[in-house]
């Protein structure tokens, strides 16, 4: 029941990042990373980590051009593999036209990275982080595609405050995004759907349709008069839809809030974030006896605190503590109960061999994995909302256990 999970993650990454070719105003940049995951017990992030796994890589190429001093266009293509997630398909990470009228007002349109907290928009850019894995309570690797980017528009700007009170940096956006059918979120829904299908005697199906869900929100950060201290707040409103076979699922419109602070001075930095995501998922199963609605209320609360120090130009060390709890508003969930929370204590080192090549070595001490898209022995959340006897019958009959083993590969 209570299981401590230790993971050693070693990442050797080639940031060909700065292999830039200046063709007049055109810039081309790229990076490629290869990771190695090893866990002392159990498997993690859908990879076979207890035996050591190389199934963790990322790569991206961006091309941008400044058409004038106010207008810039660009596109970035991204490919990733993490265990059973992702694949060889190139995805458009972002593709925008960016018009900056002045410091107070700029506008981007197209597919843009969503600004949430300190790292949401850069969580798939390994080259810019000390960490191999960002705090998973707020930036889960197997679930990142849900809020990474959106089609639509955003405006941005900054305003210097009177009386040397610092600077406000602001962004607001609206758009939509389809679900990544190869991402962890959809893979976990696949397991939910399979279990429900069996429970209701329906053919087992996967998520086949994930039409765009809306998202809109904003981010405001205050660069305080104290040099290096940043304080910020993000909020966004979203909904998600999809279907597979006789099941239609919907994540009701919900508002996610995130607060953060960062202090950076010289070689030292410390940062902390907290996020709250109250959300209810509904699954509607069409049966011979009529539609059955299964609600699943969640109240995810996450936070972390991290610090790092650059020992030299090449070596950077850091540590963080990350915590997640599901308070399950209205569902009678106890956030203090171990099955509803997870913790992660991490130590990390990054060594930059030169401007283009670096390596990371990181160790995590995990306690449980509640809140992950793919958890140990993934049991359908939706299925748990059914009566106990029907639920157990469904789990036993689902055959989904095989797929569960395939995806989560956790063993007691």
């Amino acid at each position, binding site marked *: 029941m209570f299981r401590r999970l230790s993971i050693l993650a070693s990442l050797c990454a080639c940031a060909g990042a700065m292999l830039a070719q200046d063709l007049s105003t055109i810039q081309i940049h790229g990076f490629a990373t290869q990771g190695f995951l090893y866990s002392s017990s159990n498997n993690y992030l859908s990879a076979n980590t207890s035996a050591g796994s190389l199934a963790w890589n990322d790569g991206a190429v*961006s091309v941008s051009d400044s058409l004038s001093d106010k207008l810039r266009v660009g596109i970035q293509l991204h490919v990733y593999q993490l265990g059973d997630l992702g694949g060889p398909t190139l995805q458009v990470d972002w593709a925008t036209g960016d018009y900056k009228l002045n410091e107070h007002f700029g506008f981007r349109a197209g597919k*843009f990275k969503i600004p949430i907290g300190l790292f949401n928009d850069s969580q798939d850019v390994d080259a810019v982080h000390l960490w191999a894995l960002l705090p998973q309570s707020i930036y889960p690797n197997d679930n990142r595609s849900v809020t990474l980017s959106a089609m639509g528009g955003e405006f941005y700007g900054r305003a210097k405050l009177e009386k040397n009170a610092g600077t406000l940096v602001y962004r607001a956006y609206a758009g939509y995004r389809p679900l990544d059918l190869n991402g962890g979120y959809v893979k976990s829904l696949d397991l939910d759907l399979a279990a429900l299908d069996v429970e209701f005697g329906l053919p087992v199906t996967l998520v086949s349709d994930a039409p765009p869900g809306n998202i809109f929100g904003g981010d405001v950060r205050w660069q305080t008069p104290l*040099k290096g201290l940043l304080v910020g707040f993000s909020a966004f409103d979203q909904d998600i839809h999809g279907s597979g076979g006789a099941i239609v699922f919907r994540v009701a419109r919900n508002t996610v809030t995130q607060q953060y602070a960062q202090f950076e001075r010289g070689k030292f930095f410390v940062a902390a974030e907290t996020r709250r995501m109250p959300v209810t998922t509904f699954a509607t199963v069409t049966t011979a006896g009529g539609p059955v609605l299964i609600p699943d209320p969640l109240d995810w609360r996450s936070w972390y605190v991290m610090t790092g120090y650059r020992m030299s130009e090449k070596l950077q060390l850091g540590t963080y503590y990350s915590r997640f709890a599901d308070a399950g508003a209205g569902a009678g969930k106890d956030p203090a109960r171990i099955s509803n929370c997870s913790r992660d204590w991490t130590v990390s080192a990054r060594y930059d061999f030169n401007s283009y090549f670096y390596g990371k070595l990181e160790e995590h001490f995990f306690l449980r994995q509640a809140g992950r898209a793919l958890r140990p022995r993934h049991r359908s959340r939706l299925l748990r909302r059914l009566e106990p006897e029907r639920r157990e019958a469904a789990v036993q009959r689902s055959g989904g256990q095989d797929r569960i083993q395939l995806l989560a590969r956790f063993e007691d």
Partner: protein
Amino acid sequence: MKKRRLSILIFGVALGCTALQAPGHAQNVVVIVNSGVRETAASRDDIRAIFTGDKSSLGDGSRVTPVTLKGGPAHEAFLKTYVGKGDAAFRTGWRNLVFTGQGSMPKMFDSEAALVDYVAATPGAIGYVSKATDVGKAKTLAVR
């Protein structure tokens, strides 16, 4: 386990305190701009914001585009004096902007002479060189 966590935390705080006590560096670089830029002076905060990609104009609204050296004493002195970061952290900041679609990498030069030539010839360009370097037709920007 608790003892280990406590040790790590104390280590982090100690390192942080050490960093905060790091001495400043003497100003031995000058900031230069293309002669077409009307502004003659800028605040230290503005220089920092321009070279970290946060801003793209000077106080009078003049649009500027930063260019940098690839390395060397002038580059290191500039970063420590005006940006408050080392080269690795400086590049990481720009990579963050580039790979999230928020900015373009500054043009980088091997030599101060090449940087001066570029700034002198390119409207809106802003860079830095050693005090001893001849800035030619570029204009020196006073930093308050």
